[in-house]
């Protein structure tokens, strides 16, 4: 009896100690601390800390803290979902990949920004489209990415006029200059492959979802686009089959080592390729829009980041002030210089500063970004993309014919939209 009572008392002490620690951990934070979640490592981390500190000096009543998040997009996405699902008040401001905005908006996790009456005149239109859901704006573009065709100016005289020209020039370059690969792009089974396909799809005049949100990825034009991608590898021999395992960096390394006539990549590669210390093609390449086929138009996949406000933020006005500050042209220019990211404001491309910051001809960059199209604007984008990645990779590794693969993908996408009751949703 006695021992039992002692034991119970010990347990009670232990429990109250645990409860105390839990209560301490839950105490409310100071309402004037804002938290920012996004890329906070390397150059990006330096740039954001610099700008947040400066914002804190202008607004002495607000202190901004960085909430570190993983750098890999899918890991960050997963973490955001856990926080937002738990209705956490932190972070107040979130850096979103452009394809996440509709998902978070549809779930009610981020604030509709129209209430703050944002100035929207000076943004590339496509970047705003990508951040809309149900007719309202949920995030403001922070920087843009667009797919570009890098070409070897020392091997060919001009950029290709259309897809047939590209095939010819690639083959000529390989033959006449002994370059092993004609064209390299991101072909591994991941998001990058979808962006490459989206560009070829646009080049042939096709779409993944039409303007009413219906799945049209099994159209003849889509089949033509995918068939061409496959034939580049196995029939024309201008694309090495190895690209089917490559992501951005392997592609860049091949081009950087002088092994390819053409490369499809994001703007980040530009300054790295110009660095003569590591690049064999420094000063010997240029960029151009990705060429179109008959019936289509040059298309660049739109990437980049946007800034949004947590719907449970304790101080949304301060959060919006922070977003406005980060989007000021002077801050964007600084970010371009420090990190090499492209601002979403077209007028900045007309001024001299940006060219120096990015080491690229701003007019050339602007022309490419203006061709950029968003990936499907839907809350289920990630799953949609996964379905497409599998189908594309099956066709490109010759496990399925392009038409059959795209039909499977379309069926899967329709089922997905139906499951989430988005098949009839207004867009």
């Amino acid at each position, binding site marked *: 009896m006695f021992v039992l009572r002692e034991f119970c008392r010990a347990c009670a002490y232990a429990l109250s100690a645990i409860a105390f620690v839990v209560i301490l951990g839950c105490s409310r934070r100071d309402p004037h601390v804002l938290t920012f979640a996004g890329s906070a490592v390397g150059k990006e981390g330096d740039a954001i800390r610099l700008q947040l500190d400066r914002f804190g000096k202008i607004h002495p009543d607000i202190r901004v803290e960085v909430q570190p998040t993983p750098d890999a997009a899918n890991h960050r996405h997963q973490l955001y*979902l856990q926080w937002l699902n738990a209705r956490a008040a932190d972070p107040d401001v979130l850096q979103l990949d452009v394809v996440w905005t509709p998902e978070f908006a549809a779930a009610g996790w981020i604030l509709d920004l129209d209430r703050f009456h944002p100035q929207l005149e000076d943004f590339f239109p496509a970047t705003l489209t990508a951040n809309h859901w149900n007719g309202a704006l949920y995030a403001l573009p922070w920087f843009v990415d667009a797919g570009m065709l890098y070409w070897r100016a020392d091997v060919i005289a001009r950029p290709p006029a259309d897809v047939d020209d590209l095939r010819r020039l690639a083959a000529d370059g390989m033959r006449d200059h002994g370059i092993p690969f004609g064209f390299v792009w991101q072909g591994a089974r991941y998001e990058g492959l979808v962006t490459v396909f989206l560009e070829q799809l646009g080049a042939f005049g096709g779409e993944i979802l039409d303007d009413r949100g219906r799945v049209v990825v099994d159209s003849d034009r889509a089949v033509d686009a995918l068939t061409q991608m496959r034939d580049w590898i196995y029939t024309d021999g201008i694309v*090495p089959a190895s690209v089917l395992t490559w992501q951005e960096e392997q592609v860049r390394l091949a081009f950087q080592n002088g092994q390819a006539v053409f490369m499809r990549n994001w703007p980040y590669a530009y300054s790295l390729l110009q660095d003569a210390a590591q690049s064999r093609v420094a000063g010997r390449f240029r960029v151009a829009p990705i060429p179109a086929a008959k019936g289509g138009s040059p298309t660049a996949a739109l990437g980049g980041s946007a800034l949004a406000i947590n719907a449970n933020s304790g101080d949304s006005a301060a959060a919006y002030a922070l977003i406005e500050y980060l989007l000021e042209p002077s801050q964007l220019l600084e970010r371009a210089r420090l990190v090499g990211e492209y601002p979403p404001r077209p007028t900045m491309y007309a001024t001299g500063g940006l060219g120096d910051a990015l080491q690229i001809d701003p007019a050339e960059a602007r022309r490419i970004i203006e061709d950029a199209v968003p990936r499907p604007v839907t809350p289920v984008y990630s799953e949609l993309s996964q379905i497409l990645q599998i189908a594309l990779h*099956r066709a490109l590794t010759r496990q399925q014919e392009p038409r059959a693969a795209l039909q499977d993908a379309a069926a899967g996408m329709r089922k997905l939209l139906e499951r989430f009751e988005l098949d009839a949703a207004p867009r």
Partner: protein
Amino acid sequence: MRRVTEITGGRQMQRTEARLGWAMALPALSVIALVAIGPILWAIWESLHLHDLRMPWLGRRFIGAQNYIEAFSDSRFWDAIGHTVVFAAASVTIELVVGLALAMAVDSMTRGRGVVRTAMLLPWAVPTVVVGLVWRFMFETPGGLVNTILVRAGVTAPPIWFADPVAAWVPVILADVWKTAPFVAILLLAGLQVIDTSLYEAAQIDGASSWQQFTRITLPLLRPALLVALIFRTVDAFRVFDVIYVMTGGGPGTATEPIALYTFSALLENLRFGFGSALSVIIFTVTFVLALVAIRLMGRRALLEPMS
């Protein structure tokens, strides 16, 4: 009267002790309930719901067996089951053969057996993710070690390993065999060492060839150890995740995607908690049945006492 009190007192004492015993065991029992039984029941309950973290507007509806119906009518699910079976069959077979060869080689050594045995276990001690990365690196194209060697040896078009639905299995299975064959070898070595050497001497006197000695003495007497290795490896292979996640990610397409990877993708990438839980429950059930079969087999006396 006095005796009665003593007896009841004794009983009371016993009851108190029993109660104390339960109280002492309670923390351990509640931990087991909390971390093992609770989550399993929760997963089963969850698998009967439509619960998608990304679609809070759909709520968390009870949908009965709908998730299971979806799984069983999903070709990717059956493909994944097929890939798991192929992987398990191929890797376990090769591991048993290689493990047996290694065990017999070490068993026949007269000196330095201890050192070799320890060295042999090293691959097994390397984390699977590291093993996967190293093997992927060797099979990378172009420029990977394997294809460089193949080209030097005169192969004109070596495979693009991870872009070929069949060839992609080669590095995956090799990595798994490299890592786990030593484990099998150690298990079998223990089995070999308890075989009485006089049996071989007698066989030799009777004029049995080495092959006859192997099939008539070694294999039958090694049966229990072989069975243990087979069961351990099969259950493990059925749950394969990390080595494939790191090496192929299930690709090309979904050509090397095992069931555990499909579950991971549904549950943690697409955050479909209901459907993902249904897949987990299916894996759990199959592994559980395999384990039950294993326990039954291993519990038999025939297993403990080698056949004559």
